[in-house]
């Protein structure tokens, strides 16, 4: 506890001294960079470290990943439910390669901008060739927290498993809304709070047993209840939220960690303890195996939250004004209520 408190105070004093440095300089760029980042609050995730992890993951990741493929497929399937076509689309973070590979002309996309925080990931997706050649692909390296797009320039934003590493989610989503054209669509899949529940439990137990204290090993994630509020808070119209749970099976906990590493999903919480003792790791794997394993190996839960929202436009359906109804609810009940009672008789 004492150690964590000192870490917290150190982070606070760092932020204060950085602010003093920025305030004294007259450069607007430095001031804006600071103001956008961490005014008044600490960053939960270490974005610089996340970028390095994704650089590494670019070399570890195969073109096929069962989890990323199925989530991407499920999300892109929703484009077929829309009647309109989306000319310009942004593929924002997360499984960039998989979206590029699996889009297959869905949603009438003609111009696809692929964006990721890691340059190596972008290089790898540039190498990947797709079967459909009528899509123009563009590539940029960008941060979801600082979306580099003009207001009203995009028809569609797709993000597959990228938004759960963003520090300021409401601001990031508000930026997405401004970058969209009116009646543009925002589609995202992100990991929810139930994800890696088993790993969270076994790491906590192992750390308590071996080191007498716990540290954040699995990052905090968005709960389903908050996802809808996020969409409406960012100003999206017709928000839709649904969840899916995937159970992945692995031979042991070590393979699970290998898979997470290849997806670039390792721990990047800024307050993490940077080392892990070998005995604690082995203890965690053993606890995982005994609590959540069977004869075939172990299982891991991935809860995925699918979000969809639209930038408001007058043509969209909306609720009528209060008091504008011409028929009373009582009359409706009379009409339908009677027929129902007759039916039951």
């Amino acid at each position, binding site marked *: 506890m004492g150690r964590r408190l000192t870490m917290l105070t150190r982070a606070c004093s760092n932020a204060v001294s950085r602010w003093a440095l920025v305030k004294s300089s007259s*450069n*607007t*760029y*430095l001031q*804006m*960079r600071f103001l*956008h980042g961490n005014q008044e609050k600490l960053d939960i995730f270490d974005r*610089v470290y996340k970028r390095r992890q994704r650089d590494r993951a670019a070399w570890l990741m195969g073109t096929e990943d069962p989890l990323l493929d199925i989530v991407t497929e499920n999300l892109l399937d929703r484009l077929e439910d829309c009647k309109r076509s989306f000319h*310009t689309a942004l593929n924002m973070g997360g499984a960039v390669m998989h979206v590029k590979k699996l889009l297959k002309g869905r949603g009438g996309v003609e*111009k696809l*901008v692929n964006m990721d*925080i890691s*340059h190596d990931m*972008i*290089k790898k997706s*540039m*190498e990947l060739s797709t079967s459909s050649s009528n899509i*123009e692909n*563009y*590539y*940029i*390296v*960008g*941060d979801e927290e*600082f*979306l*580099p*797009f*003009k*207001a009203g*320039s*995009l028809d569609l934003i797709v993000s597959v498993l990228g938004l759960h590493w963003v520090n300021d989610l409401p601001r990031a989503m508000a930026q997405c809304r*401004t970058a969209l054209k009116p009646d543009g669509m925002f589609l995202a899949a992100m990991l929810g709070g139930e994800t890696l529940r088993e790993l969270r439990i076994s790491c906590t137990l192992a750390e308590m047993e071996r080191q007498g204290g716990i540290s954040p090993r699995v990052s905090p994630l968005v709960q389903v209840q908050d996802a809808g509020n996020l969409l409406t808070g960012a100003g999206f119209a017709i928000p839709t939220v649904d969840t899916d749970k995937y159970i992945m099976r692995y031979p042991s906990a070590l393979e699970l960690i290998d898979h997470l590493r290849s997806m670039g999903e390792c721990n990047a919480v800024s307050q993490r303890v940077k080392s892990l003792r070998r005995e604690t790791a082995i203890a965690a794997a053993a606890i995982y195996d005994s609590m959540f394993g069977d004869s075939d190996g172990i299982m891991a839960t991935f809860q995925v939250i699918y979000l969809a929202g639209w930038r408001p436009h007058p043509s969209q359906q909306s609720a009528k004004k209060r008091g504008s109804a011409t028929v009373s609810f009582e009359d409706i009940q009379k009409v339908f209520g009677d027929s129902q009672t007759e039916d039951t008789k």
Partner: protein
Amino acid sequence: MGFWPWRKAAASISEGLLELLACPLSKEPLRYCNKSKELISDSLGVAYKVVDGVPILIPTDGRILDQENKSQSS
């Protein structure tokens, strides 16, 4: 050159992409400088690199232009 096959194809930034992009901080349009091969945000005085046709638009990677350079490039 043979090792990085994409280097030959994309030397500069394409027009179709440039019309969408804005400065990640000020959200104002960017200008491509042919001489330094960088994207420049005039209002903030910052240049963003373009590597093999891929613009690196991350705020911490921006290069602050001093006044002399700024007047030269424009």
